[in-house]
């Protein structure tokens, strides 16, 4: 029982990483109705910017703030420069560009900052939390930041007219234009917000996994798994899904003897497949009902 409890706690602390990423994934999905495969790389690149600022002697929180703002602008710029010209192109063209962005950003980071592993500071320290060595104060802080972000997003989408306009633009662009919403700017705003949230995720994840250009590859996969599990239309579900994937991964690693470190990653894929088969909208996603 003690072991089970400890493993769940450890699962929650890794889950916090996935939850953070899942939130960024859902954010972009809300804005553009696609999954952005380059999301992890964008977050990684942002984290490098923060690292560079901190190396130059900028205080942590100032670097944090600058990074979030720069990432927001970068996200908007990517939408304007790369995606605006192909807004009427079929989905596959978008997918190709996502993959291109993925490798471009990855190599650019490698080119600028090389591939050696760097350590990244945590604002929350790394002392044990609640006297347990399984969850550190950093991971506790991460859970808190993720939940805080979630609350902010919820308030933004539910109670502001920009949030409502963004949802409308994503769900039904043609009708959104007819009520006067500038759809293409809403999409750009969605990109900016997703990039900003991704940068926060990256900066929180980097102290745990260390900073290098490939740090996000498996994390993005877990983030997708969390988002799919919780439901791509539900930010709250995605966060919960992220935590759940962390816990599932840990428990499977502990209790199913065959699954060691090597087989941990496929668990994310298994989760995605199982959820898509049995509950395509995710556990908390809104099932879209429509009359035909």
């Amino acid at each position, binding site marked *: 029982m003690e072991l089970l409890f400890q493993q769940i706690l450890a699962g929650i602390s890794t889950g916090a990483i996935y939850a953070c990423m899942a939130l960024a994934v859902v954010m972009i999905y809300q804005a553009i109705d696609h999954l952005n495969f380059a999301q992890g790389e964008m977050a990684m690149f942002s984290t490098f910017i923060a690292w560079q600022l901190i190396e130059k002697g900028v205080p942590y929180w100032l670097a944090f703030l600058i990074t979030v703002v720069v990432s927001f602008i970068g996200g908007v710029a990517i939408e304007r420069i790369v995606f605006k010209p192909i807004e009427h192109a079929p989905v596959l063209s978008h997918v190709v560009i996502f993959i291109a962005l993925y490798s471009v950003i990855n190599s650019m980071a490698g080119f600028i900052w090389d591939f050696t592993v760097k350590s990244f500071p945590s604002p929350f320290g790394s002392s044990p939390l609640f006297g347990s060595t399984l969850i550190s104060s950093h991971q506790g802080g991460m859970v808190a930041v993720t939940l805080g972000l979630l609350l902010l997003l919820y308030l933004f989408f539910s109670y502001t007219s920009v949030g409502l*306009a963004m949802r409308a633009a994503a*769900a039904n662009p*043609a009708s959104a*234009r*007819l*009520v*006067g919403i500038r*759809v293409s700017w809403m999409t750009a705003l969605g990109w900016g917000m997703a990039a900003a949230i991704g940068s926060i995720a990256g900066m929180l994840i980097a102290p745990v996994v260390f900073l290098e250009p490939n740090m996000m590859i498996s994390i993005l996969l877990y983030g997708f798994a969390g988002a799919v599990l919780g439901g791509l239309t539900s930010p709250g579900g995605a966060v919960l899904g992220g935590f759940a994937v962390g816990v599932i991964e840990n428990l499977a690693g502990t209790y199913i003897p065959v699954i060691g470190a090597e087989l941990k990653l496929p668990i994310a894929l298994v989760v995605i497949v199982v959820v898509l088969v049995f509950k395509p909208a995710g556990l908390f996603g809104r099932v*879209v*009902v429509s009359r035909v």
Partner: protein
Amino acid sequence: MTKLLEVKGLTAGYGQVRVLHGLDFSLDEGGVTTLLGANGAGKTTTLRAICGMVKAGGEILFEGKNILGKSTEDVARLGVAHIPEGRGTFTRMTTEENLLLGAISRKDQKNVQKDIDKMYDHFPRLKQRRLQQAGTLSGGEQQMLAIARALMLRPRLMLLDEPSFGLAPLVVKEMFEILTALNKEENASMLIVEQNAALALGIADDAYLLETGSIVMSGPAKQIGADENVRRSYLGY
């Protein structure tokens, strides 16, 4: 009376295919004009051209200014509320959110709640369905919602594309009564595209008859409706 909308030599098409071959028509402030015609005559395309949803040529004067070539969202912001074919409901959102969206580009946001209450007075059924996902409303309710959403813009001009489409005769009758009342009480100007000519002629001041992208006849609605030949050859009743 001043002209609210004046269309001159309007052409439009999709890719290489030209659908409209130079239309001229107009709409008075507070008036109701209807465009009649069979499937494929170009009725929907005409509305889409006014809203900048298709590439068009000619001149579209709205309150004296040419709006041809403006983006759809800019035309909406000028106060043109288009209720498209298929009603344009935001199906995943609630009834109330749909109404809020109708008013989203308005500058006077403080009056929006008052207008929503007014819509609930006009359409009590929508009030019962306030928090229901709009996609689950019945066809008639969705059409009511579409009209209410358009009114939330406090439009200078409403464009209605086949408001009777897919609705039961009784519901259609109710809807045209509502439209007539809106025109009388709120002085709402409307351009209505309809296949159901009898209904549309009943509410309209002026009517234009469209055939394969050209206007073949125009005049006061009463006169068009009374013309035996027109009725037999074009309107089919």
